[in-house]
């Protein structure tokens, strides 16, 4: 070993190598390849798939799920499994957004995101400081958030006269919605946080082994809280995007985001045990599911089949993940 000390400097020095087909990355790689294969096959065999209109509808779904999956991935990577309060956060965010929209778009967005920060802070604080079970905490949070939303809105649709269609439904080019830039921005920011910032690194290490992290003096509480804050922030952002579609807020908007986001994270190849995975894995997972869902819809399959496919995909990736984890340990 010591004879290689003088070895030439090389790119392999990067601190996170693992090629595309290493056990760590194989699932993420497989999903990316599947996306390409599926898109090609669907363009040939599914009528209506290869059109600009359809591209746009796939991208809209990808954005709404991908944005929250990007945030949720941080919670998963930090070793806290997942959150079941995403839908609730997005729902209440549509209401906050529509309520404040009359004061202008920027104040509305800022207020909504601020609400997201608070919701994330409370949950992260409970999990990180009070050491509560992350799943149950988020279930409780979801119930409280929905209760607050129902109490505030009375179930009514809140509407605003200020129209923000450019954000909700607008396109840069036919087939490419404006929202795609939001997704890209979130993706880049979250990825930067995870792979370049100190807290992001700490988050990953905590997810790999929280005991070692504790003995290494890493900032476990802060990292946990920040992961939750970002996750809730992206959920709130997704609420903004939904609310912007028709300048309306309603508690039933955003339903189903929880499972879609979890499925995207798991399918994309973020390890449920924590520590492994990148933000763009989760976003690819969202794209993958959006394409499957789109094909099913175009083929005339309904909600139930979609749900079953989603569940099957989650179970399959959990099983695959377990097998890969064993491979990795060998």
């Amino acid at each position, binding site marked *: 070993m010591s004879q290689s000390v003088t070895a030439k400097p090389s790119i392999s020095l990067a601190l996170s190598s693992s090629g595309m087909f290493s056990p760590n990355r194989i699932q993420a790689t497989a999903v990316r390849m599947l996306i390409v294969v599926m898109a090609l096959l669907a363009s040939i065999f599914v*009528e*209506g798939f290869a*059109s*600009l*209109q*359809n591209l*746009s*509808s796939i991208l*809209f*779904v990808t954005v709404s799920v991908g944005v929250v999956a990007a945030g949720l991935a941080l919670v998963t990577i930090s070793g806290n499994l997942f959150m079941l309060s995403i839908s609730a956060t997005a729902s209440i965010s549509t209401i906050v957004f529509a309520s404040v929209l009359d004061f202008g778009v920027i104040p509305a967005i800022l207020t909504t995101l601020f609400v997201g920060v608070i919701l994330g802070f409370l949950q992260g604080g409970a999990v990180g400081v009070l050491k509560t079970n992350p799943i149950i905490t988020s279930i409780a949070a979801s119930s409280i958030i929905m209760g607050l939303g*129902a109490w505030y*809105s*009375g*179930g*009514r*649709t809140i*509407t605003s006269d200020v129209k923000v*269609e450019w954000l*909700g*439904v607008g*396109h840069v080019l*036919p087939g490419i*919605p404006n929202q795609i830039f939001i997704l890209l921005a979130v993706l880049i920011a979250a990825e930067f946080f995870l792979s370049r910032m100190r807290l992001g690194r700490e988050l990953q290490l905590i997810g790999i082994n929280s005991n070692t992290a504790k003995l290494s003096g890493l900032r476990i509480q802060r990292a946990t809280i920040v992961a939750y804050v970002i996750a809730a922030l992206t959920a709130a952002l997704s609420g903004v995007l*939904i609310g912007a*579609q*028709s300048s*309306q807020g*309603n*508690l*039933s*908007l*955003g*339903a*189903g985001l929880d499972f879609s986001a979890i499925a995207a994270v798991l399918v994309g190849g973020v390890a449920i045990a924590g520590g492994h995975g990148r933000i763009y894995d989760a976003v690819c997972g969202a794209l993958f599911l959006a394409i499957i869902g*789109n094909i099913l*819809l*175009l083929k005339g399959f*309904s*909600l139930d089949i979609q749900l079953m496919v989603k569940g099957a995909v989650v179970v399959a990736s959990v099983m695959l993940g377990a097998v890969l984890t064993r491979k990795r340990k060998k």
Partner: protein
Amino acid sequence: GIEDKSVILLQPTEECAYCADYLKFFKKDATEAGFKFETVTSAFDPANQANQVEQAIAKRPDAIILWPVDVNALIPSMRKIKKAGIPLIISDAMPAKQSEPYWDVYTGGNSEEIGRESAHALVDAFKAKGHGEEGEIFVITGTPGTPTSIGRTKGFKEELAKIAPGIKILGEQPGNWDQNVAMNAASTLFTRFGDQVDGVYAVEDLMLAGVIVAAARANIDPTKLALVGVGCELEGYENIDAGVQHATVLSDAYSDAKYAVNAAVKLLNGEPQDKYTYLPNPIVTKETLDLCHGALANY
């Protein structure tokens, strides 16, 4: 006198605009009518509402007004009320035929009639948008299997075939009474049929709002489409006002609550009344928006 009589209203939830309005108007009308009343809501959970029926029976009121979460799931509860000898008014959701022996009065919409009116509204819309009497549309229905959705769709299709055989229905997708689901369903229909589509009928204004978003996302100008919804809900009111939606068929909480209270008063006074009392359901267009009491109250 009626002042000593008590009524319990069991409502599915107050967390929907329609439900909240209903509750508001009900409280106002019932207070004016002068009987004592309590209201209970169940978070849209049939098991919970069935449990609440047992609680309500325990209170032994003079009448129960039940707005069933689910017209099938509450039949056993209606039987229990009947057995307990408490007069029962079913409100809003038309109950199944076989539950008729268990209740006294139904007040609420007539779904098939609403569907038929919608067909006329659509034909008007076609003319107004310059599509003439021929063209293609699709339909967004409610949650499959809900009687309201079935009735409205059935009435609409039958009447349309009769009065405008030139308008073809390209497809039909459930929107589950949910704006988002309706939007996704409409998105795929727009993807599949694109520019072929001249109009859309959604059995609820809220779902039609989702259709309008889907059209915008698909780069289709919604103002060119003949759009008809039902309910004159806030979304419908605004979209008609903005000139996007052509018409809606009124089915509003204002009359729904008023009719329920009236039925209760008659029942408490022992006056005779029809077993079925249907709400009026006029077509509402931009010119007649003031018919929308519910939406106006929230505006």
